[in-house]
């Protein structure tokens, strides 16, 4: 199996994120491998362990995103590639999907592309489906379980997590899969992996390297980023002698407020 796992570097979810003059900052919180992508990396590694082959971690981002790729290497990916091009600074999902699809084509003979269900920063959750569309491969998104995978028969069967329950789908390879939390328990990088990752040279590809003669123009722009207005709620503490008394008062207040 030749597997590509697309990853992104994001601020830690514990970060307090703020914005000043349109620039987003997250204080001294670390940048990490997008938490949802950890599940994708883990799933890629498990598939490789079961069916052999190799896993390539692919990221589009600034040079700092090397750190996220190094983590993927330390977890056990065979190689990592960073797509970094100043021309891609304002890339929107449409551009990102075009670039990733071109890179996947350049890697060549890929059987499976894995994504996390989204990224915890922009959280559009559409990069996987868009890349699939560009590759003209089927997309199996929100996958909670890969129930069977047959590299020779070129088929994959999954359980997708819809709001209404799970949808069982079978499709051919190559395919694009986006995974949700719960599909696995991501491993920590091993010390051996850490050593290998910290010594590895991660190649940087430009748009020219992946055969895009010109950088596509983004369709979307972000004229303004701002903090939501703080809702000042005064918390009314409900007190009483017994739990029953507290509960009765709270129930009365909820009915008064017409929320139930």
């Amino acid at each position, binding site marked *: 199996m030749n597997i590509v796992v697309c990853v992104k570097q994001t601020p830690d979810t514990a970060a307090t994120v703020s914005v000043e003059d349109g620039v987003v900052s997250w204080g001294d919180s*670390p940048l990490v491998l997008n938490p949802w992508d950890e599940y994708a990396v883990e799933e890629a590694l498990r598939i490789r362990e079961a069916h052999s082959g190799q896993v390539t971690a692919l990221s589009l981002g600034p040079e700092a995103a090397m750190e996220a790729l*190094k*983590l993927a290497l*330390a977890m056990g990916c065979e190689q990592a590639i960073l797509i970094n091009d100043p021309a891609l600074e304002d890339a929107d999902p449409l551009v990102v999907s075009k670039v990733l699809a071109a890179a996947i084509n350049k890697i060549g003979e890929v059987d499976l592309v894995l994504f996390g269900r989204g990224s915890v920063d922009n959280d559009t959750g559409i990069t996987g489906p868009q890349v699939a569309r560009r590759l003209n491969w089927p997309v199996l998104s929100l996958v909670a379980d890969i129930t069977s995978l047959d590299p020779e028969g070129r088929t994959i069967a999954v359980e997708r997590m819809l709001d209404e329950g799970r949808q069982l789908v079978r499709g051919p390879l190559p395919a694009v899969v986006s995974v949700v939390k719960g599909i696995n328990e991501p491993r*920590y*990088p*091993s*010390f*051996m992996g*850490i*050593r290998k*990752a*910290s010594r590895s040279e991660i190649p940087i590809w430009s748009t020219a390297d992946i055969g895009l003669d010109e950088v596509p123009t983004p369709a979307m722009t972000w004229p303004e980023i701002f903090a939501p207005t703080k809702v000042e709620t005064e918390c009314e503490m409900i007190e009483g002698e017994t739990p029953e008394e507290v509960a009765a008062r709270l129930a009365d207040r909820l009915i008064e407020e017409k929320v139930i």
Partner: protein
Amino acid sequence: MDFSLTAEHEMVQKMVRDFAQREVAPTIKEWDRKQDMAPHILPRMGKLGILGVCFPVRYGGQGMDFISLGLVCEELEAVDTTLRVVMSVHTGLAGLTILQWGTNEQKKRFLEPLAHGDLIGCGAFTEPGAGSDIAAIQATGKRDGDQYILNGEKMWISLATKADIAIVTVRTIPDAAKSSRSLSTFVVDLHSPGVTTGDIHGKLGVRAGSTGWISLQDVRVPVENRIGEEGEGFKVTMSALDSGRYTVAAGATGLIRASLKASVDYANERRAFGEPIAKHQLIQVKIARMAQDYEIARLLYLKAGWLKNQGVRNTRETSMAKQFATAASFTAASEAIQVHGAYGYSDEYDVERFMRNARGALIYEGSNEIQILIQADYALGHRRDKPLRCEMPVYDPIDWQEA
């Protein structure tokens, strides 16, 4: 001069931090209340390679350096002291002592299972009547053919009831000219006949860990389990404490960091007199002190770790690092309680546990009073390091990572 950590160090740090935060932090208060050690901790630390982080790969370790060992301890104790105690006694007292003084055969036999956590190790030196005064050890070992027969009581032994093997120092030459030449050190299989162990409850701190006693009654130990020569036990034990102390120093640094972080978070949230208490200067004094102490403690242990990597004796530097960091960690935790006010006094918050946990380290692995005497002796020229028959090997990444 380069104060930056390598990419490798940073990844080690993050990996151990993630482990401790994800797998230990959520339940640590419950285990602390129960006065018991979460059963998954030792197997997980073994499986992840943390227990053998700084042993050479050919002995089953991960081939990382002593700085990594320090960083691991800092990260672990930032969550709970009991985790770092595991590193002190299993990796430090047991593992590193065997690495330094053991024969190749002993290293092969013991380090590999220790590295993977297949065997858990501890160090058993102190006795009901012998703490800092190692030369006053009462436990005895009598040679009987190709065996020794060990008798005695060891007390305040971390992991006593969890460990499979203990590094035990006993008196084997009762008539030696100097009592320090009368000691020998052994690897004792704690499953052998005559060994009984128990936990001590009612400790002030490290309640989510195991601290206990080991009783030896006519325990037969093969001569090939002796670490070092007959009569070398004092030196072996002192080396063990050098290794253990380093982990204590690094860990206490993590405890200062945790107290600082808890205090900063709380001071920014909690309001009094119409503003966050972080705006109050007397709170700021406490925060500044913690920040400074963290920095000093960190520099001290990292320097000791760097010396260890070079293979340079570091008894003096490690002593300073241990004494400073443990004292500062107790102060920081106590001040963190003050920052938290009455809430800090309750176990809803972490800081009261930090303070209870910090207190022990002022006593164990050489009390802080002993550390001051060591430092004074060096400064006054009363003490000079003499070469040991077995020095801790220089950290050579190529050699240590060779399979």
